[in-house]
């Protein structure tokens, strides 16, 4: 192992990253845009989850203050009322899921329409029918507040976006780039120099880890400046988990980089790995209540363990001891990926 050769390749890869202006900018802009987008959507009071169509109504936009809307519906949050001139138009919109619920304006008993294929329609239907029961007939229920600080959806989502960006950047930045280099002959040119596979791969990996952490810090600071995220645990612990996470993702990238000269095939494999990982690792939504096999499957992805540990530190104030299981799993995964990548690596094919 020659440190000089390693350092030379490390610098060359970093230069490539920083000089490729378009890709460089996108690496920062992409997570920022997603966080900012969700910040705007969930932060604004006008956020809509349910769309309720009202007919016959001459105006398209209807405010909740409209006296013709039943009281029970008017008080619901996250709803938007849409005026529709005729019943047939309303049914058409309902059929195509453009609205979740259709109500004929008038006096009780109300006529309403809902699609059996629409989960949101079902929820609105239940809320609407419950709202029609007189208060005296309702059994008592008392609202209790969540103890401690409330976690905004954006606080929950933010580490997911950062880790997802990390995953894509690691898998494509190592896996895809090395395959491209193998295809166009760069690896062949390097193979005939004294550079060893270990020196080359460790330079690629460490350069990517450095760039991932650099991107993470910049995006974190930028987003935190605007949305001020809550971190109950230690920033140092958080950094350590992200570092371990980026190492495991990069090591997985090395496995994908180890063979192949077809960029198209590698793209397929990358999508095959990254898309299920994105959806099953709780980046966007929780798997609470999902079938047991889905939860079990999600545990094969490093991203799941990164996010579990990061969210515990951020939202529950956990220390390293409390996320030691995730640390152990990520470390083992990293070692397994590194060994597999090293064993399988070929300069030529």
């Amino acid at each position, binding site marked *: 192992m020659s440190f000089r050769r390693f*350092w030379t390749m490390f*610098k*060359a890869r970093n*230069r490539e990253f920083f000089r*490729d202006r378009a890709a460089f900018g996108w690496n920062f802009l992409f997570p920022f845009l997603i966080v900012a987008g969700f910040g705007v959507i969930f932060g604004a009071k006008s956020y809509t989850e349910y769309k309720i169509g009202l007919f016959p109504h001459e105006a398209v936009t209807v405010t909740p203050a409209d006296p013709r809307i039943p009281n029970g519906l008017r008080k619901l949050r996250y709803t938007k009322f849409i005026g529709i001139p005729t019943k047939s138009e309303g049914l058409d919109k309902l059929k195509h899921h453009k609205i979740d619920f259709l109500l004929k304006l008038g006096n009780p008993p109300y006529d309403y329409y809902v699609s059996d294929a629409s989960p949101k329609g079902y929820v609105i239907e239940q809320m609407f029918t419950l709202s029609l029961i007189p208060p005296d007939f309702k059994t008592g229920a008392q609202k209790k507040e969540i103890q401690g600080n409330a976690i905004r959806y954006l606080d929950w989502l933010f580490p997911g976006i950062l880790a997802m960006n990390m995953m894509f950047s690691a898998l494509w930045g190592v896996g895809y780039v090395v395959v491209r280099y193998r295809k166009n*002959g*760069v690896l062949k040119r390097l*193979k*005939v*120099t004294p550079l060893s596979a270990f020196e080359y791969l460790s330079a690629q990996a460490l350069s990517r880890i450095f760039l991932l952490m650099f991107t993470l810090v910049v995006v974190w600071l930028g987003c935190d400046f605007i949305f001020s995220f809550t971190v109950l645990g230690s920033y140092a612990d958080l950094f350590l988990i992200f570092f371990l996470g980026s190492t495991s993702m990069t090591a997985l990238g090395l496995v994908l980089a180890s063979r192949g000269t077809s960029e198209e095939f590698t793209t397929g494999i990358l999508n095959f790995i990254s898309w299920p990982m994105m959806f099953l690792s709780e980046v966007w939504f929780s798997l609470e209540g999902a079938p047991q096999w889905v939860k079990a499957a999600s545990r094969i992805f490093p991203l799941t363990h990164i996010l579990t540990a990061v969210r515990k530190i951020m939202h529950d104030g956990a220390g390293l001891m409390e996320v030691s299981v995730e640390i152990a799993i990520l470390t083992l995964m990293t070692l397994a990926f590194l060994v597999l990548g090293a064993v399988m690596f070929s300069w030529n094919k």
Partner: protein
Amino acid sequence: MAALLEVKNLVKKYKTVTAIDGASFSVEKGVCFGLLGPNGAGKTTTIEVIEDVIPPTAGEILYKGRPRTVSFKDEIGIQFQTTSLLSFLTVRETLETFQNLYRKAADIDNLVELCHLSEFQHQYNDKISGGQRQRFLLAMALINRPELLFLDEPSTGLDPQARRNLWDLIQQIKKEGKTIILTTHYMEEAQHLCNEIAIMDYGKIIARGTPQKLIKQHSPEMTVVLPLQSVNHSLENLPLPYRRVHDTIEIKTNDVNSCLDLLLSQRVNLSDLTVRSPSLESVFLNLTGRQLRE
């Protein structure tokens, strides 16, 4: 003189193709050794096996009398037929990067001067012309002051000026005493640069020697070329074997004077006559045939 490189019974087989079929040759120190052959003859595979890019199926390769060791890579310089380089690096940065991969290193300023890179040394390595690129790749092959230099079709795709310029450069490198193994299918290039030549076809070495020796052995005759119209009336009476090539006839002869006397005796008009000396190209065509390979 002891051979710097010896290749013995080299074989490289792929699933259905035998790319190298028992090739043997040796290269002495300080010579420019040309490996010639039509497309698909196995030239590039042969030198890539020697360079350790691909493993041989069988055979032995000795460098300085011994099997190649790890230090072999430090002592050779390579210019591939086609290659890509690390992206977003300038020509000079690429040279610096590769310089750091070797134990021995050439002075970059000297290389820039030798290979005429100064004008574009600060441009990105993929934003230079074809001729500039070949000179730059040659500089890269020299970055570790190699004892043995491999040049795989270095002038393919270059215009005549750029090709001449590259040849001058290779001549300069030859003068420094470096051993060069060059593959080409330009016979003029081989004749101009190589001290020794091996002609390869279907994975085998079919002829070896100096250009002069090969010409003497395989194509010693001069070629007398006449426009068809000069001999048309007396074609049937021509007392020499000839070959019709488009609008000309070609007569091979070892004695030009007797040939011309005979032609004059037949009242052939010699005003548009040309005489071609034997060349490596005729050797090549005689040995490898004229049929199209690809």
